[in-house]
């Protein structure tokens, strides 16, 4: 039955397409939510079966895709602990976001189109993580890209949204192309794209043709495109042009973590190449820092969250680069809940304020929207990794600690991870204070209904409790999560540092988090006069961070403008000149020959004589 999990959302999407405008809004809502809900139910059933069984991976071949020269990739689904974690998040969080969307999109005319795309997205995302071979995974991979494009540009009348949508598709496609080349290399080396065969092959004797470093880096290229990591992260902040539930589902909880999934899934290949591992760790580290700084300087509530997502995925990549596969997936798991919660909360705020997204025009919403405030606060605490009580603390602390204590860890990575933690606390609570505290700047027009509030509460609950699935050595030492993943992802080797150091490290992290919150409170609530203009002006370094380190400008100069210039100057195809020139030459010659037909007998005689002379000369000479 579990193979129906990705099929049902696809069917839901198909029904919505065929039904079109004939379906009423309630019917659309029921089909849209129902299909994902059904998948979530099946996932839970499959999960229970999986937990009570022996943890053996399941596999079902739906049909053979094609068969060439003995290579026959199937449309085959593969369920193991890793994919189970992902499909749980996708269907469960996805279902909550679908329910929320019924409230959020209630007045939109394109209600049907919204749920169609959302359903197709969930189907493709499930296909991505359940695929047993990389080709099928690529299908899901591109499918989610398409749905992301359609949903970012959902309000298509504004060309800005269209540009953001195209940018997202094109930038990720750059990564996808690297991934495709990686697939060609893998196929050449292993003669298959079936994941388990490749992983088994890579663990055993490696084919001579396999250059694991290059392959791993190419796969990484695909991963950083989808997961918005440096240098391909620039599409994600712009992707906030889509409706907020989309940002929550696609650009926070699920699709952007596909890169994390890809690296974790092919971890055997990465583990073989120290270079690739280092690159992963460095990309993650730099990304988490620069995105953190950018988040600190945004005015738009959703863009803060977007940069924060980039930064948190940076943590996941850091963990992957450390070989701490389980830690990366654990952070993905907790992040999915609290970041979806934050986006949905932000959506509720934006909806209540006539689609106002500028934080500095909000303020004082604590009393007006209490449920939203409290759930948002819980999500923020989790994002900022408030010690002991939040899920974010346990998942991030693990990564921070392994940056020092893991066998690939070192002082620099540790320092960067700590800095990132401080930045996170600072920008998160800057956002909370500006939005919910202080004086109100815009009046609340409507309050979220039940469909929106209930998902918030459920997600808030999960943003706390999921942390307790995995506790560090010195604090209870629970390893439910990593234990569950251990058949797929090997545990990280740490350097057996003394327990005291772990206490100290956690203490530092806690101090940084609380310090960040305190500083945010100081600057934005208690004494805003300390740093005047922090809320308004965007100049100097602040503006530089605000613009995302000017990478967009750089890419514009390097790629976009030259391409457009080339397109403009050569619109008429310069090679055509050759052929028109040829045609012109012919006409010209033709004209010259016409001139000789002048009707003057003398010219004809002279011509004949000269011709005879030339022929004679040639025949004599030869």
């Amino acid at each position, binding site marked *: 039955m579990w193979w129906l999990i990705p099929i049902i959302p696809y069917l839901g999407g198909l029904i919505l397409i065929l039904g079109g405008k004939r379906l009423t809004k309630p019917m659309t809502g029921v089909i849209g939510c129902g299909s994902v809900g059904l998948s979530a139910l099946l996932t839970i059933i499959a999960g229970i079966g999986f937990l009570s069984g022996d943890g053996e991976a399941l596999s079902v071949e739906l049909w053979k895709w094609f068969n*060439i020269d003995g290579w026959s990739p199937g449309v085959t689904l593969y369920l193991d602990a890793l994919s189970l974690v992902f499909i749980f998040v996708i269907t469960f969080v996805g279902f909550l976001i679908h329910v929320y969307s019924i409230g959020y999109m209630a007045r939109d005319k394109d209600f049907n189109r919204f749920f169609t795309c959302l359903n197709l997205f969930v189907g493709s995302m499930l296909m991505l993580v359940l695929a047993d071979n990389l080709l099928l995974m690529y299908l899901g991979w591109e499918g989610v890209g398409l749905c992301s494009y359609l949903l970012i540009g959902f309000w298509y009348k504004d060309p800005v949204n269209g540009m953001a949508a195209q940018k997202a598709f094109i930038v990720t496609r750059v990564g996808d192309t690297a991934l495709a080349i990686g697939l060609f290399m893998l196929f050449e080396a292993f003669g298959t794209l079936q994941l388990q065969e490749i992983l088994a092959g890579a663990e055993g004797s490696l084919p001579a043709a396999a250059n694991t470093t290059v392959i791993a880096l190419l796969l990484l290229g695909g991963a950083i495109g989808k997961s918005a990591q440096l240098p391909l992260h620039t599409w994600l902040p712009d992707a906030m042009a889509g409706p907020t539930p989309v940002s929550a589902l696609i650009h926070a909880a699920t699709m952007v973590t596909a890169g994390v999934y890809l690296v974790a899934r092919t971890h055997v290949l990465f583990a073989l190449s120290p270079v690739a591992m280092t690159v992963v760790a460095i990309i993650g580290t730099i990304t988490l820092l620069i995105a953190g700084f950018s988040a600190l300087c945004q005015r738009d509530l959703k863009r803060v969250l977007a940069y924060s997502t980039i930064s948190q995925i940076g943590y996941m990549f850091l963990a992957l680069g450390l070989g701490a596969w389980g830690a990366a997936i654990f952070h993905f798991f907790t992040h999915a809940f609290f970041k979806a919660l934050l986006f949905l909360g932000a959506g509720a705020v934006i909806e209540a304020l006539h689609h106002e997204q500028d934080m500095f025009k909000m303020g004082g919403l604590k009393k007006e929207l209490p449920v939203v405030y409290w759930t948002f606060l819980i999500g923020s605490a989790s994002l900022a990794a408030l010690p002991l009580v939040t899920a974010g603390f346990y998942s991030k602390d693990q990564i921070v600690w392994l940056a020092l204590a893991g066998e690939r860890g070192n002082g620099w990575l540790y320092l960067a991870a700590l800095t990132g933690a401080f930045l996170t606390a600072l920008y998160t609570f800057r956002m909370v204070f500006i939005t919910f505290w202080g004086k109100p700047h815009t009046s609340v027009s409507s309050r979220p209904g039940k469909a929106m509030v209930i998902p918030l509460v459920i997600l808030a609950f999960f943003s706390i409790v999921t942390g307790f699935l995995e506790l560090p050595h010195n604090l209870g030492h629970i390893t439910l999560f990593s234990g569950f993943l251990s058949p797929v992802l090997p545990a990280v080797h740490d350097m057996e540092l003394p327990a005291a150091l772990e206490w100290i490290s956690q203490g530092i992290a806690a101090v940084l988090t609380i310090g960040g919150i305190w500083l945010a409170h100081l600057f934005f609530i208690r004494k805003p006069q300390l740093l005047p203009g922090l809320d308004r002006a965007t100049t100097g370094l602040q503006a530089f961070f605000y613009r995302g380190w000017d990478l967009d400008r750089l890419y514009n100069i390097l790629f976009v403008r030259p391409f457009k210039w080339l397109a403009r100057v050569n619109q008429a195809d310069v*090679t055509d000149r050759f052929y028109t020139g040829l045609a012109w030459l012919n006409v010209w010659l033709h004209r010259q020959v016409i001139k000789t037909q002048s009707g003057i007998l003398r010219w004809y005689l002279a011509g004949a004589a000269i011709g005879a002379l030339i022929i004679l000369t040639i025949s004599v000479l030869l």
Partner: protein
Amino acid sequence: MILAWFILILMFGGLLSWLAARWNVLLARWIALGSVLINFFLALGIWWRYSLPDGGVLSGGTLTVPSSAAGSAVSAPGSPATWIADLSLEWIPSFGIQFHLALDGLSLLMLLLTFFLGTLGVLCSWKEITERPGFFHFNLLWVLAGITGVFLTMDLFLFYFFWEVMLIPMYFLIGIWGHANRIYAAYKFFIFTQASGLLMLLAILGLYFIQGNNTGNYSFDYFDLLGTEIPADAARWLMPGFLIAFIVKLPAFPFHNWLPDAHGEAPTAGSLVLAGLLLKTGAYGLLRFVVPLFPEQAQAFAPWGMLLGVVGILYGGKLAFAQTDLKRLIAYTSVSHMGFVMLGVFAFTTMAYQGVLMQMITHGISTGALFLLAGMLYERLHTRDLRQMGGFWKSNPTMGGIMLVFVMASLGLPGLGNFIAEFLTLNGSWPANRLMTILAAGGLVIATIYSLRIMQKIFFGPPWQDRPLAALKPREYLILIPLVAAIIFLGLFPQAALKTTGTVIDGITETTVISLETTLTREGGNQ
């Protein structure tokens, strides 16, 4: 005999339609539609029977073909057992010219595509062509007959004959029923094709005399010429004759210049046949003639061939992005997509060849569909200028959705047939030439850029002058739905097509490999 019927039905249908139009135009349209449909169902029947013994694996082992298929004798002398039907009649015996038609998996698929798109071509002209409809249908059906002949002929003299039969009615289709700049476009098309065709004629004659001198048996028959021992210095001159004819038709860079004009100016059915079918005769020629007849020279040309393919992919894509005329834009995407054919043909691997075949079929469907959609937009808006479009999703989401499917096909979205084609081509080219494959893969990004631009300019963005786009009519649904179904079917179940051509591909790759091996051993022996 059924093979001859394919051609005769179209030719008679064309004549009859021309005559009938004097009395009743509608009758003429129905006659044209009927004759193409008969062919389509005949071909479908053959395909159905051919697919029955589920061959499964493509490589190794030959398919057992039911000898009753098509009721004709199977397997001509000297040919492998992959031929489904064969017809050989004396024509001009003193010169060794025969009326020789034969059908294998490759030609079968191409015929299916021809009649499928041909049917849609008649349907899409139903309302569009009101001027001299009889003569129009005569030309349309004769182009189709020429194409059918090209895909079936196994005699090179006859091949050249059909090659010309394709050309002249097409010239009329563009020149009479085209858009504003139609005369220029028609001449350009004619001169490019005719000039390159003459080179092919010379090469055919050269091959004929060399083979005749060698064996004393002067013959234009494909199977007689196939094993000809051509002196290297002669082959160096003969191979380009074929090559140029086919890559002008394909078209490959830098011979693509006729295409945007011809495609852009032709009436919808003309663009459909040009993009969907005529270009494929070039690809077909490369696979059927250039590679098997001149394996060594083709091998020597391979790096350049792949380079031309890559340049076509990137340069065509860039030009597509620059266009403001929708039909020219689609035309340039064809240049880009046919670059993949060039790349794959000169990679000489089974997988690349399968990719090329899929590309021929899926590109025919997806680009044909885009031209049909462009035609429907033109009927509604009376413009092809992208700057005068926008925001049509609101008034016609169905058409937008269908356009989206084919725009996605053109950028190679998995789940649609074009993805299988491009992936197989690239994956098959990788072992042959890594650098070229990487550069060609860059075409995926450019394809994304120009494809998304189509959607953005037509269906998204602010509404242009608030002009609504009229809903699709039943006839238009009838045209578009089969195309959508076909492209999705080929994306999810490509095996149905790949299986049909499998043995043919193996035949081509084997001849190449064998001839190269013999060359190597010969050279080895000389040392």
